[in-house]
């Protein structure tokens, strides 16, 4: 039964929830090649995409995101698939819905367009809004429970996406940004130079219902970012960092943190104030299984 996002928002006030893990990692392992469109697999390889969703639910995810990270027209146009925007997003939702267990939820993933807004770049805020509106509408019609606006690099794009989601439906919107770690200052900032508290306040003012971080570095930085956000807001916070930094060996790329190493930071991440935790690039269902163990242990308290 779709559209239950507000139930999730109520639940998270009482207990921590588990989001899912990486998709790119899993899709490439399943044979997606360089330069191919991941969202096209919602049509051509539904079995694979559905299998990834199922694996995360079975590992303990309370909710998963759709395989629609690059599902804006601007992004799909790069693959000459812009005309299939509606179809690929709707199909993406359906695949997650088909394996969503009772009590589980589906979040519609909305990622960045890879374009920069004027005057710095080549798109207008109106174009950004229209791209996100089109995608959000398709995701809502497909039957998501909420939205996951994620990996955003700069505030105008994140805010345009939030506005677009709210314009098509009243479902909750989670919004997370990408932070880089500045070694020189031992601090985390967006590519636009904003601190975690600034980001939290800006996104909440823009209408987001849950805010936080994803991608970027590993859970060690997520702890710092969430702690700083928690200092300025009582709302639900989410963190789904990468499995550490990528490492290359013999032309193959892996991530530095296996499930066991990664999960060590999750009690600290919950203590810092995260209400929803998951993982991003380089993580697998096994990472989520270990993370879910930590979260479930907390719920019993």
């Amino acid at each position, binding site marked *: 039964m779709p559209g239950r996002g507000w139930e999730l928002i109520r639940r998270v006030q009482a207990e921590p929830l588990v989001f899912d893990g990486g998709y790119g990692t899993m899709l490439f392992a399943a044979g997606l090649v*360089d330069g191919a469109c991941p969202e096209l697999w919602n049509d051509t390889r539904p079995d694979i995409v559905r299998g990834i969703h199922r694996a995360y639910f079975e590992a303990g995810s309370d909710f998963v995101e759709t395989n629609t990270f690059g599902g804006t027209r601007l992004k799909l146009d790069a693959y000459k698939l812009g005309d299939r925007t509606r179809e690929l997003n709707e199909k993406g939702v359906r695949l997650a819905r088909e394996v969503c267990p009772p009590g589980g939820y589906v979040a519609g993933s909305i990622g960045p367009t*890879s374009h920069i807004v004027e005057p710095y770049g080549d798109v207008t805020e109106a174009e950004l809004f229209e791209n996100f509106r089109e995608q959000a509408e398709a995701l809502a019609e497909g039957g998501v429970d909420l939205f996951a606006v994620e990996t955003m690099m700069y505030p105008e794009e994140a805010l345009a996406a939030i506005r677009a989601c709210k314009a098509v439906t009243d479902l909750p919107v989670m919004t997370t940004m990408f932070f880089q770690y500045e070694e020189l200052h031992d601090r985390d900032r967006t590519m636009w130079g904003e601190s975690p508290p600034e980001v939290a306040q800006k996104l909440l003012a823009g209408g987001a219902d849950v805010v936080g971080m994803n991608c970027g570095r590993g859970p060690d930085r997520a702890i710092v970012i969430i702690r700083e956000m928690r200092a300025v807001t009582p709302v639900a916070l989410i963190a789904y960092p990468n499995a550490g930094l990528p490492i*290359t060996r013999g032309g193959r790329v892996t991530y530095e943190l296996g499930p066991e190493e990664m999960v060590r930071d999750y009690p600290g991440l919950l203590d810092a104030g995260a209400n929803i935790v998951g993982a991003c690039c380089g993580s697998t269902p096994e990472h989520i299984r270990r993370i879910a163990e930590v979260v479930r242990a907390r719920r019993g308290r």
Partner: protein
Amino acid sequence: MSDNDFPYPLMARALILGDRETVGRMTREGLDQGLDPKAIIFKGLIPGMDVVGEKFRRNEYYVPQVLLSARAMYAGLDLLKPLITASATSGYLGTVVIGTAQGDLHDIGKNLVAMMLEGAGFKVFNLGRDVAPETFVQAVREHHATIVGISALMTTTMPAMKRTIDALAAAGFRDRVRVMVGGAPVTQAFADEIGADGYAKDSTLAVVKAKELAGAAAPARP
């Protein structure tokens, strides 16, 4: 007004502040006064971009400020480039062919590097994104490039960097060009592993590395 009297520091300051109107106006004024176009580039624009790069490295400037400064730089550079004849290109630090690895559609960071290299005094040919190894080879041949820059944001497209280096070797260009790689997931270890000549973790350090590879710590003054 002679070259010595021209207010180059004001021009550099306007560039640092991202004031493209002032940079464009001062460029036209300099040309009207008969200044050498190369002098305007090397005494006005490049010192300004050097400061921008340093501010970016120190996290005083972020992407928006760098993009505004780059836009101001082009307000001058676009007027000056057509005036520099082939015989006068000796002042360039080198010729760079730059692009995103095959299969990778991300080019924001790569464009930043291209702008900074151009602002540092390199001649830059930006091939765009999703650039096939053969396209890199063809561009090196056509432009007599001395440096090749390859970028990747996705870990899955990093192997295409190696294929590009292999293609350059197969075409007989490996001794002639220095290859630089960069992008969020790229590391020095990866650069070493695929036989690249240089790696830089951001656009400011990419300029430093490119100068090092070009064997020119300081630009030849016009």
